[in-house]
């Protein structure tokens, strides 16, 4: 148990370590993705440098192996050559021994019959062509017989020769060092000297088989050692015995100073890279001693050719690893690119998710999400908290029944189920909700089902707006509207009443006046003889009053009509209107000498009918108040004074005292008596109403007996 727990703990530790590594790797990648150059470089180095290391290792290993191989091959060649030479020497020795142990020969030599003895050996050179000369010497080294015969050397003692010293040392067969022939042609040779013994083991002579060095060269050449390789033999004195490139004739070449030769003569074998002083190039020199003889074999080859294969291999290797390196670089780039793209995408996704979250969270509208199965809240935004008064901690995982009164929860849940069943959005224009802190609020809620890819509802999305205030406002607006409508109806009714009143005024009030006037006139006519002057005069006053009253009624109606009538705005040619009105006025009293001065081209925007009434009243006034002024002038124009532009009607008539100017535009207000100038005092009141209805202003300037000017704007 404990072990298991420890294992688990260990595993957890490992996991956390891996997670840590993965996390930091991800961080690194992220930074790389953010175009962090040093980190990108580090990644490249991390991935690429093992490739470089492996390549270097492989290079050096291969270099080493191939060098070793080449060298050991040289070594083998040297050993092989040594063995071959040994074999040749053995063979030569065997031939010599076979010849020296021939019974007949031994007998003849024992009897001192040298010529006869050599005669038996004449066929040897034919049998073994590499044997150059055969001769016999007595045990003191004096040449006794030879074949082919060389007269000058017969009888000469050769005890100084190596072949003699070697064999006479312990009377064993002996391979001599290289020496120059005593007779012409003096080419270089070696010799095998075999002691000839009688049956009683007495040394009676020496058989010498002389071999020309060319034969050795032939042997050395028979060893296959590569393109520019060669093998040479040295005797135990270090003299060159056979060299494929050096002639075996002429002076004997001494190689005893060559280091490898010195080594091989000491019985060592090995391989070395040396500088060949003769050819001024580096060579591999493998050397091996020839057993029993003290000779040595050196196999040499220029390093250039010896290592050609190695170098070629290495070149191939470099190319291969170069390709691998290239591929790994590309791979690294691709991996980096893909990973960083993935990281970027992931980062982008997270950023977008955050953004979405903040859109949901900061939305002023209540947003909530319920799981489709149990209708428990899984999301509840800030606005939802504000509206309901519940924190999301209190809501998440709960359903409507946990939070709201049963009836409300029933309603909510029913709607939820409906939405999920139909998979269609539902708009609930108004629903009550008992909040935690604000009592009952009204919500406008839209609910819709969020489906998973196969179309099964997974969540219920709700979006609610608190419409309590709006509803209240709407309610009060509705009330206000109703009130307004009511007032408007009342106003219309009042207007209607006013109209009816005006109608009856115009119709009914005039009727009695007509009676008063008419019957007064009837009295005057029918009872003229019964009335005195005063009676008639009184009746006349009655009539005048009734007519004045009729005029008052008419003017009053005109005034009210000005206010009630509908207004249109259109271009109105005031100049033409003034001309027409002036002509009308003139026609009422053609005898009057009066000048009208009317400005040209005055066109205003306004209601033609109303403006005509206004102009009519103003011109009437001017006409009236100039009636006592012969040769008067009435002017209509447009003036611009102190930035104030206005139309004006000016006369040079009676004028008035500006002290009373404020009474000028009041209804039934008059500044002159009726006896002075007729009038009801309604004209200017009418003008003012018309000008005001046009949004303009009317005012007057006057002096008593110096005329008056009425200005108006539109």
């Amino acid at each position, binding site marked *: 148990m404990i072990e298991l727990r420890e294992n688990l703990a260990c595993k957890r530790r490992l996991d956390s370590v891996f997670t840590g590594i993965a996390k930091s790797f991800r961080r690194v990648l992220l930074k790389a993705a953010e175009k962090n150059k040093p980190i990108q470089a580090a990644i490249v180095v991390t991935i690429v440098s093992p490739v470089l290391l492996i390549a270097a290792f492989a290079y050096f290993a291969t270099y080493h192996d191939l060098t070793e191989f080449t060298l050991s091959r040289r070594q083998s060649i040297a050993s092989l050559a040594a063995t071959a030479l040994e074999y040749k020497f053995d063979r030569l020795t065997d031939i010599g021994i076979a010849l020296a142990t021939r019974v007949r020969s031994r007998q003849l030599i024992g009897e001192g019959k040298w010529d006869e003895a050599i005669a038996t050996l004449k066929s040897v050179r034919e049998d073994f062509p590499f044997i150059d000369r055969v001769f016999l010497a007595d045990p003191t080294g004096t040449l006794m017989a030879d074949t082919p015969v060389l007269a000058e050397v017969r009888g000469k003692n050769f005890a100084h020769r190596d072949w003699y010293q070697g064999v006479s040392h312990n009377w064993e067969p002996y391979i001599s060092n290289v020496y120059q022939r005593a007779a012409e042609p003096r080419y270089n040779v070696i010799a095998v000297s075999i002691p000839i013994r009688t049956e009683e083991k007495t040394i009676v002579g020496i058989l010498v088989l002389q071999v020309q060095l060319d034969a050795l060269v032939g042997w050395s050449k028979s060893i296959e050692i590569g393109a520019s390789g060669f093998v040479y033999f040295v005797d135990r004195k270090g003299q060159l015995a056979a060299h494929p490139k050096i002639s075996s004739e002429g002076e004997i070449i001494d190689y005893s100073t060559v280091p490898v030769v010195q080594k091989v003569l000491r019985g060592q074998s090995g391989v070395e890279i040396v500088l060949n002083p003769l050819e001024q190039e580096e060579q591999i020199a493998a050397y091996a001693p020839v057993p029993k003889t003290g000779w040595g074999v050196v196999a040499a080859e220029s390093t250039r050719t010896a290592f050609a294969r190695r170098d070629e291999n290495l070149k191939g290797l470099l190319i291969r690893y170069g390709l691998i390196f290239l591929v790994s670089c590309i791979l690294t780039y691709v991996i980096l690119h893909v990973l960083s793209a993935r990281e970027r995408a992931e980062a982008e996704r997270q950023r977008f998710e955050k953004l979405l979250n903040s859109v949901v969270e900061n939305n002023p509208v209540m947003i909530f999400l319920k799981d489709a199965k149990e209708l428990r809240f899984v999301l509840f935004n800030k606005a939802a908290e504000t509206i309901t008064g519940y924190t999301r901690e209190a809501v998440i995982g709960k359903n409507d029944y946990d939070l709201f009164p049963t009836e409300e929860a029933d309603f909510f849940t029913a709607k939820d189920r409906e939405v999920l069943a139909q998979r269609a959005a539902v708009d609930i224009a108004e629903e009550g909700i008992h909040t935690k802190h604000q009592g009952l609020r009204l919500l406008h809620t839209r609910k819709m089902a969020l489906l998973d890819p196969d179309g099964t509802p997974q969540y219920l999305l709700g979006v609610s707006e608190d419409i309590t205030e709006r509803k209240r406002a709407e309610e009060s607006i509705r009330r206000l509207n109703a009130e307004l409508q009511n007032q408007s109806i009342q106003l219309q009714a009042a207007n209607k009443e006013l109209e009816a009143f005006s109608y009856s005024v115009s119709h009914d009030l005039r009727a009695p006046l*007509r*009676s008063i006037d008419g019957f007064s006139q009837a009295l005057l006519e029918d009872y003229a003889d019964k009335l005195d002057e005063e009676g008639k005069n009184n009746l006349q006053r009655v009539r005048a009053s009734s007519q004045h009253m009729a005029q008052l009624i008419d003017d009053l109606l005109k005034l009210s009509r000005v206010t009630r009538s509908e207004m249109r705005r259109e271009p109105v040619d005031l100049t033409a209107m003034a001309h027409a009105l002036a002509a009308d006025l003139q026609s009422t009293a053609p005898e009057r000498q009066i000048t009208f001065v009317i400005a040209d081209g005055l066109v205003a925007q306004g209601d033609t009918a109303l403006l005509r009434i206004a102009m009519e009243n103003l011109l009437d006034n001017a006409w009236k108040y100039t009636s006592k002024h012969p040769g008067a002038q009435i002017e209509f124009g447009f003036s611009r004074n102190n930035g104030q532009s206005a139309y004006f009607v000016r006369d040079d008539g009676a004028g008035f005292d500006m002290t009373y100017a404020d009474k000028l535009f009041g209804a039934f207000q008059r500044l002159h008596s009726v006896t002075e100038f007729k009038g009801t005092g309604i004209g200017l009141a009418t003008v003012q109403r018309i000008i005001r209805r046009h949004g303009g202003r009317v005012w007057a300037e006057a002096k008593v007996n110096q005329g008056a000017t009425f200005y108006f704007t539109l």
Partner: protein
Amino acid sequence: MGDKIILLVEDNPDDEALTLRALKKNNIQNRVVVARDGAEALDYFFGTGAYAGRNMSVMPTVTLLDLKLPKVDGLEVLRRLRGDERTRNLPVVILTSSKEEQDLLNGYKLGANSYIRKPVDFNQFTESVRQLGLYWLVLNEPPPRREAP
């Protein structure tokens, strides 16, 4: 002139008296039939009610029609006259106190031949009646009379 009848539709006895006085003063001696409300006027035109059985071949040469009348008002009377084959062409002069634009428009629209506002000044009124009588009873050629069906 004796067979030319004037129909005066007038509810106000004072106005009636004054109109008759004005006619008399102008020596217009045609027979004047007075209807005191719109219904009575229609009865006269169509020979119904109090006027049932009257000689329908006799129609007023001119009708002086007040607008503001009890029972059936003047404009309605006019509409009914103009809506009937028998009375369509009869000259009707609106003689009223009203100077309302609306009344004028409606009067002409319904086919009034003339519209005269009663002046308060009796002398002017007399003058108006004189001209009215001269025109409609003397100068004007009435539409061809048709026999009653």
